[in-house]
């Protein structure tokens, strides 16, 4: 009988422990999704949410402060998102705060980033509509990159033509760099200049001794 009682107590401890671990686990999982905290809701309209999903984190100054609650298409050009933000951070988020969409690392989940507003002291209120910045779409980046690449290819092909002509001695610069006769001409010019200046020097020496220039 005593053994039976102690077994029952052991069973009781076991069950309590199991249930406690389960409840604590559920609490912490729920805590992340902010089920047990007081939150407030704001919304924003994007043209394109770039893969943001309900449940993604909301960051303010790099800290997770909330989650994306729902995403719905409003019209053909706008998507409305509802976000839940921790009540404690309300005082830091101003009415003119701006929401943008970023991602956690290169391959990570999408996140909603709220940049604090400046120049106003009015706190954000429940169900306020937050200003948004359209995310930079990867396709747009690629499209603009394509124009850049096309231009670059034109430039490089022109450049290759020019360098080819320079190398074959065509054009002014080509002649200047590649034509040896110019260099020879320069050479002889310098030789002439040199001898000319030597003659000039002799002349000047003679002139010094000339009586016509005495007194200078």
């Amino acid at each position, binding site marked *: 009988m005593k053994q039976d009682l102690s077994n029952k107590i052991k*069973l009781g401890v*076991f*069950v309590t*422990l199991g249930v406690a*671990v389960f409840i604590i686990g559920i609490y*912490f*999982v729920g*805590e992340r999704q902010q089920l047990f905290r007081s939150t407030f809701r704001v919304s924003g309209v994007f043209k394109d949410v770039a893969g943001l999903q309900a*449940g993604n984190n909301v960051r303010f100054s790099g800290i997770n402060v909330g989650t994306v609650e729902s995403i719905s298409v409003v019209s053909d050009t706008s998507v409305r998102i509802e976000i839940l933000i921790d009540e404690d951070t309300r005082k830091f988020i101003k009415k003119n705060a701006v929401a943008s969409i970023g991602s956690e690392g290169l391959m990570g989940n999408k996140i909603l980033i709220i940049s604090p507003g400046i120049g106003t002291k009015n706190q954000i209120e429940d169900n306020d509509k937050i200003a948004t910045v359209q995310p930079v779409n990867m396709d747009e980046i690629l499209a603009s990159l394509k124009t850049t690449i096309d231009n670059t290819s034109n430039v490089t092909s022109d450049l290759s033509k020019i360098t080819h002509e320079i190398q074959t001695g065509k054009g002014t610069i080509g002649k200047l760099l590649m034509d040896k006769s110019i260099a020879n001409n320069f050479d002889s010019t310098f030789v002439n200049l040199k001898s000319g200046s030597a003659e000039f020097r002799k002349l000047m020496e003679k002139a010094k001794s000339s009586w016509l220039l005495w007194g200078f």
Partner: protein
Amino acid sequence: MEKHISHIAGNENQMKEITQGASSGNFSNSIFKKFFLEVSMITIFTLRFFKEVWKPPYEFNELLRQSFLIGYKSFPLVGITGFIIGLVLTVQSRPTLMKFGAVSLLPAMVAVSIIREIGPAITALIFAGKVGSGIGAELASMKVTEQIDAMQVSWTNPFKYLVVTRVLSATLMLPLLVVLADAVGLFGAYVGVNLKGSVSFHLFFSQVFQSLEFKDVFPAFIKTFFFGFAIAIVGSYKGYNANKGTEGVGKAANSAVVFGSLMVFLIDVVAVQITSLFEN
């Protein structure tokens, strides 16, 4: 109830005929017959459980005693297994994540694996090995030594006293064991992470709960009830319908483990399909 028993007894006789038929040559035909007969008998057995479980008198003390034996007594085994699985999974996953430079994702990845699949599946298999075979062998030896028949004569309902209590306590205890095994497994993972790296307990803890969502936790938890139920019902069925003789006991214990484990995987594959249906 007597009708049921006579029905099952009738099935047993049919089974013997079929088994004899198998040895006399008509092999493939009898294999199929044997399979379908087994399915029908186990279905009747399960339906009988659901019929008997609501009917008073409730064997409450026996339920507690069985819960102690099935739940509390299995915890050391399940705990050690959980710890080792958590540790080994972490150490084995590290090189792969290192290739991608994503070692910091290790706690999150291991947590999701343990909670969603490894914890429930490994615990259920260990449970099938320990409890399923135990139930099978115990009931089979009672059947062989005619204790079940004796209970019948003394106006105790053996099905209620032996089967209902065991199946109920296994159904209720396995989820608890899985929760505790998950917790111990995560601790094992923490040790595993710190064998070759350095992650504080606080960081590990917050990374684990960052990665988990309700859709990871609840389906995994709910399926463990089905695991426990299936293991115990298969074990009880095999024991309750054991053949006479010592050979029958061994056979009952053996097939309780084999079919119990198989049932765990079958339920698992159904559960994963249902879960993914709701996720999309």
